[in-house]
C-alpha cells in the first residue's frame, strides 16, 4: 500500500525545504549561536567594550546561591503546575467522556482559559487575589488567614502555580478527552462483564491505554512550565517577594533585560537549553519504554 513520492533531481526537494529551513536558521540557529557566543563574553550593554572570558560567566552563574535557589523554585513550581494541570484535566476529561448533559458547552468553556493571553490571565488572578482589592483576597483576610502574596513567598508561589495551571487545564483536557475517546468501548465493557468496578477499570485499563497521551502531555507540560509561564509571573509577582517566584526563565529576563548583564543572562539561557535537551532525551529514553502504544 505504500507509495513513495520520488522527486526528479535534487533541486526541487531543497527548494521546497527552503522556507522551513530559512525560518529555522533565522529564528532558531542564529539566536542560539548568538546566545552561546555572548555567554563567553564580558561586554557592556552598548557593546563598546568586549572581553573574551571563556567560561567565567558560567562559573559565576553556577556559583551564585540565588541561581541555585531559582533552580529549586523552578522545580517546585513546575512540579506543582504539571501535577495540578494534568490531574484536574484528567478528572474533567473522564467526567466529560462519561456523557454528561451539555458536554459540548462544557468542553468549549473549558478551553477558554487556554486562549487567554498570559498577561490578561495574570490581571484576572490579580483582581481575584489581591489582598485589598481582590474578592477572594479580601475574603481570605476576612477569614483571618493573613493572605498577602506580596509579603509571603509561599503564597506568591501558590498563586502563580494556580494561575499557570488554570491556563493549562484546557489544553490538557482536550488531549485527554481525545485519548479517552479513542479507547475502544469493547475493552472497558469486557472488563465490566468480568466484574471490574469503575475505579479498577480506570486503573487497569483506561490509564495504561491512555499512557501515550499522558506521556506526550508530560513532555509538553514540562517545557511549558519551564518557558511559557513568564507572562503570569511578570504580571502577578515580578519574581517577588524576595526572590520567591523568580523561576529560571524569569531570571534570564531580569538579568538580561532589566540588569543588562548580557553575558550572565546568555550563560543562563545556554544552561536552560541544555537542561531542556537533557530532559527531553531522558523522557524519551526511559519513560517512553513504559508507554503502551497501540
Amino acid at each position, binding site marked *: 500500500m505504500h507509495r513513495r513520492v520520488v522527486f526528479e533531481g535534487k533541486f526541487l526537494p531543497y527548494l521546497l525545504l527552503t522556507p522551513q529551513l530559512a525560518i529555522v536558521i533565522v529564528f*532558531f540557529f542564529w539566536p542560539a549561536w548568538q546566545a552561546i557566543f555572548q555567554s563567553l563574553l*564580558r561586554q557592556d550593554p552598548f557593546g*563598546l*567594550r568586549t572581553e573574551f572570558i571563556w567560561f567565567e560567566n558560567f562559573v559565576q552563574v553556577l556559583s551564585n546561591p540565588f541561581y541555585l535557589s531559582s533552580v529549586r523554585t523552578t522545580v517546585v513550581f513546575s512540579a506543582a503546575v504539571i501535577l495540578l494541570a494534568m490531574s484536574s484535566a484528567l478528572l474533567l476529561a473522564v467526567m466529560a467522556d462519561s456523557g454528561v448533559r451539555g458536554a459540548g458547552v462544557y468542553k468549549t468553556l473549558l478551553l477558554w482559559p487556554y486562549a487567554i493571553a498570559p498577561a490578561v490571565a495574570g490581571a484576572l488572578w490579580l483582581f481575584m487575589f489581591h489582598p485589598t482589592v481582590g474578592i477572594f483576597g479580601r475574603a481570605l483576610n476576612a477569614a483571618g488567614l493573613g493572605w498577602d502574596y506580596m509579603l509571603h513567598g509561599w503564597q506568591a508561589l501558590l498563586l502563580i502555580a494556580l494561575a499557570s495551571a488554570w491556563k493549562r487545564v484546557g489544553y490538557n483536557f482536550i488531549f485527554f478527552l481525545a485519548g479517552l475517546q479513542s479507547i475502544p468501548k469493547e475493552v472497558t465493557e469486557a472488563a465490566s462483564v468480568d466484574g471490574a468496578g469503575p475505579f479498577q477499570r480506570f486503573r487497569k485499563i483506561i490509564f495504561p491505554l491512555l499512557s501515550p497521551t499522558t506521556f506526550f502531555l508530560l513532555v509538553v507540560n514540562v517545557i511549558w512550565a519551564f518557558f511559557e509561564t513568564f507572562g503570569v509571573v511578570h504580571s502577578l509577582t515580578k519574581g517577588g517577594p524576595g526572590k520567591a517566584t523568580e523561576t529560571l526563565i524569569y531570571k534570564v529576563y531580569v538579568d538580561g533585560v532589566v540588569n*543588562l548583564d548580557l553575558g550572565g543572562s546568555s550563560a543562563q539561557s545556554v544552561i536552560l*537549553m541544555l537542561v*531542556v535537551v537533557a530532559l527531553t532525551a531522558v523522557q524519551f529514553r526511559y519513560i517512553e519504554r513504559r508507554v503502551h502504544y497501540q
Partner: protein
Amino acid sequence: MTTRTKFFVGFVCFAVVAAAFASTPDVKAAQPTAPALVAQAGRVQVDFWHGLGRPLGGILEDIAAEFNASQTRYHVNATFKGSYPETMVAAIAAFRAGNAPHIVQMFEVGTATMMAAKGAVKPVHELMKEAGVPFDPSIYLPAIRGYYSTTDGRMVAMPFNSSTAVLWYNRDAFRKAGLDPAKPPKTWAETRAAAQRIRSTNAAACGFTFAWPTWTQFEQFSAIHDTPLATKANGFEGLDAEMATNSPLHVRHTQALLDMMKEGSFKYGGRDSAADALFPSGECAMIHASSGLRARVLRDAKFDWGVAYLPYYDDVKGAPKNSIIGGAAFWVMTSPRRTAEEYRAVAEFFKFIGRPEVVARWHMESGFLPITYPGITLVNALGYYAANPGADIPYKQLTRSLPSRNSKGLRLGNMPEIRVVLQEEMELVFQGQKSAKAAMDAGVRRANEILRRFEKVHTGQ
C-alpha cells in the same frame, strides 16, 4: 533555544498584529495632513524615543508637535517605546545595530550606565557648544543639574521630567483621628504617633505606607539625613564606590519600619509603584510617594488631601537636607551616520524645551517638577501655586538646602538592580526572616557585587 525561538516567533506575530492595528489609524490620520507631510520632507528628522504612557506621553508629544510647528527646518518624531527599562533596552539594541535614535529618554537610575557608555552618548554641554546654541545650565535647579552633571559641573543629559518623593496625607482621616490636618508630621516620631492614632481611632484601614521602597526609604532618606548611600560621594567620584546602607541610621530606620509594621501602623504595599493605589483609594492615610502621583490623586481621591515634606529623625545632625530627584532625562545618542545638522536639530529642540513657558506648562499639566528658575517664576506669576496649595512643596523640598556630597544624587552603576536587591532585603525583614542588621549587611554585600561587576565591565579590571 526553545525560549528564544518562541520569543522571536511571538515577537514577530506581535509585530505583525501591532503593525496591522497601528497602520489603520495612521492611514486615516495621514490623509488630511498630507500637505504637512510634504512640507516635512525637506526637514531634518530627529527620532526621539520616550517611555511615558498616556496621559503624560501625550503631553510630551504635544510639546514635540509644538516645536515642529514653531519652525520649518527640523522635525522631531516622538515615539513611545514602552516603560523606561524597555525604552532603554530598545535604544541599546538600536545602537548596537548602528541605528540609535537621536534622543532617548532614560530614567534617573540609568544615569551611570549612560555616562559610562562613552562613544554611545554625546554629552549635552558638548552638543550645545558644537551646535553653537546658547545654553546656560545655571537656570536649572541645583539638585537637578547636579544629578546629570560630571563632577566638574558639565551637564551630560538634558533634564526634563524630574520628580521627588513627598508625603501625601489624607486630611479627612487626620480630622477623624483628632489630628490637626494643618500639621502633617514633620519627624519620624510624629509620623509613627500619627499612624498609631489613625489606627487606634480606625480613621483609616492603614496608617502609613510607601511606594518605590528603595527610592523613598533609602535614596531620599539618605539625602535628607545627609548620610551617604554609597562611598565616593554616592559614586560621583569613581566606579569603585561601595554601598553604605548598613550604617546605624539605615539599620535603625529599617527596624523602626518593622516595629511599625508589627504594631499595625505601617503596611507594606509592594515593590515599585504598587503601593501608589493605597492612597487615592483612602485605605492608607499617609504615603511616601512620587510628587508625580498628583494627577492620579486629583482624579481618584474622594477626600480632602494634602502634600508635605518627607519626615526625618530630628536627632540626626544636618537633617533635613534637600531631597533628590527621580524621573527621567533626555540623552543624545550617537550613530555612525549622524550629521552635524542633525545634532543641531537636537540642540534646537533642547533649547525649546528649556523655555520657561514649556517648563511651566509641563509642570502644571503633568505634576512633574518645574526644573528651571525662570520656569518657577512664570508658574508663580500665573498664580498656579496660589490656586493649588501644596503644588510647590516638591520643588521647595528639593531646594530647601544646597546639595551636599550626600544629597547631590546618585551615580551608581546597575542602580536598577541595586534597587531590587534593597527591596528584597527589606521584604525579608518584613517577613521576619532576617534581622534589620543582617538584611542591611546582606544588601550591602550583594549590591557591592553588582557594583564590582559594573566596574569590571567598564574598566576591564
